[in-house]
């Protein structure tokens, strides 16, 4: 799965979660760019991503992902393990 495909999957998960079809994620998207993507929705998003890809992030990583790109990369790293 390429990074672009992962990004598309993340976009779908977040759109479903927030009920907003207009969301477009890019590698450099940060949480502040998306209205209503607060800390609570963030955790839901993370768990949904974990379930989708069958992985588990470390809590310290969850806390410090600087942008969407970092999540995409972390998924790659976790699946590569």
């Amino acid at each position, binding site marked *: 799965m390429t990074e672009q495909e992962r990004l598309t999957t993340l976009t779908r998960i977040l759109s*479903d*979660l927030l*009920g*907003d079809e*207009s969301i477009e994620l890019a590698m450099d998207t940060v949480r502040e760019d998306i*209205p*209503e993507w*607060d*800390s*609570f*929705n963030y*955790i*839901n998003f*993370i*768990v*949904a991503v*974990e*379930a989708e890809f069958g992985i*588990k992030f*470390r*809590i*310290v990583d*969850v*806390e*410090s992902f600087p942008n969407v790109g970092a999540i995409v990369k972390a998924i790659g790293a976790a699946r590569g393990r």
Partner: protein
Amino acid sequence: MLFNSYTFIFGFLPVALAGFYALGARRREWALLWLTAVSLVFYAWWRPVNVLLIAPSILVNYGLARALEQTSEARPALARAILVAGIIFNLCFLGYFKYLNFIEGALNDTFGAGFVLTQLILPLGISFITFQKIAFLVDVHGGRVSRFSLADYGLFVLFFPQLIAGPIVHYREMMPQFRAAPGRFDAENVAVGLSLFFFGLAKKLVLADPLGPLVAPLYGQAAAGVPQSMTEAWIAALGFTLQIYFDFSGYSDMALGLGRFFGIKLPVNFNSPLKATSIIDFWLRWHVSLTRFLTAYIYNPLTLNLTRRRMAKGKPIFGGRSPNIGAFVNLLAMPTMLTMLVSGIWHGAGYTYILWGALHGVLLCINHAWRLARPRIWPDTKAYRRKMVPVGFVLTFVSVVAAMVLFRAPSPSAALLLWKGMVGAYGVRLPQAVFSRLGVVAGWLTSIGVQPAWTSGSLLLATTLRIVSLLAIALLLPNTLQMLAAFEPAIGVKPAKTPPRLLHGLTWMPDRVWAVGLACVALAGILSLGELSEFLYWQF
């Protein structure tokens, strides 16, 4: 030593800076050691014995962190045990000084336990320092911090601009800055630092402090059981909200400015919280460094674990547009209430703080519930925001102001009395002087329960004018961070893509107009120095 004292501004600070620049020109390590040393002096100034309390705690924490660093890869179970021990040690340290009396008092009240209460002296800033130490241990355990020496750790804990009342900082955002600090005089850093410092000083001394004596008698009367009319109750509520906002955000500006003198940027603490349009929004603007801490170290780990567990059991979690009551209670309401209760208890050992935390927890839950389950009658998000943002602002403002009564009131019953006053349970009182000039209207006002009172009409007028003008500043003007945005006054602050309307003429720049303006602000602040006025947050 207070930031707002002659000793600090004209004695301590110039000496600290001169030494830092002089040593920095030779070796940066010396400059950093100097900074640690003056920070200890700053801390000891208040009560030298405090150093005897904080120093051992620093050493123990450093030892634990070293042990964690060595075991976290090789022996995870042992590392976990060390982490838990470290957290318990710090919480006990805080608990002994801050909560022992409260717990014993509560046991006495409830069971007649007969504990003898001893007056313990609270080491200055212990709540802030404790949180930062716990965060450091968690970060070392999680591998977010590597490579640290006792000198690094000491400076991180003691760095005097943020030592007593925050902003609460993370090691990983401070240490790279200390390592890269030029240790030399830098015109931009000093100009930005001076501006932030004097803005803060004026906010604290000119705007916040005069409100103190204005609201104190009202809370005093409420505590003595004297009902307050709507007029007094709202003055008490609005007056204290404005006092604590200008006090604490003024303190935070001063801290940012002080850090900047040394080339260090501290994190954002306030971003015009009274302009918030929802309670969630309020907590992203008020005491941001505390919200960030609680989210990172309590709320997120808790919710993540709960959500994973729930998912593993096959129960519904959040997602899509079908909010589920069980998921809401377990994954949102419970962690939110717990986090806000911790926040309340952290602020002080007292029922009012606990209730204040609980109240904000409930408000946050209501806000989340609305977001999840609000009727979808608006065609799109834009239309929804246009209609509902003003409503959200009013609801948030009133909730925040009402909750602040609990924060200031000496007891829950005093707060209750003031709340009843705010909704008009004890009528409205206007000054006799105003009443006698109203003619026929006075008779009509009396019939709806307005009473002539307040011997001084001019006092009410002056109070009202003060509160209205401060509200205008807090709600309409851009904040310090927005004015200085081009110079990154706090970590990560950048100029907004769409700057607020009023910012146009108020964008900070190093020119003559600003020099004169800031000199006036500084003068106003310095002329108000002298009276002993502590920061409200130094008690926590």
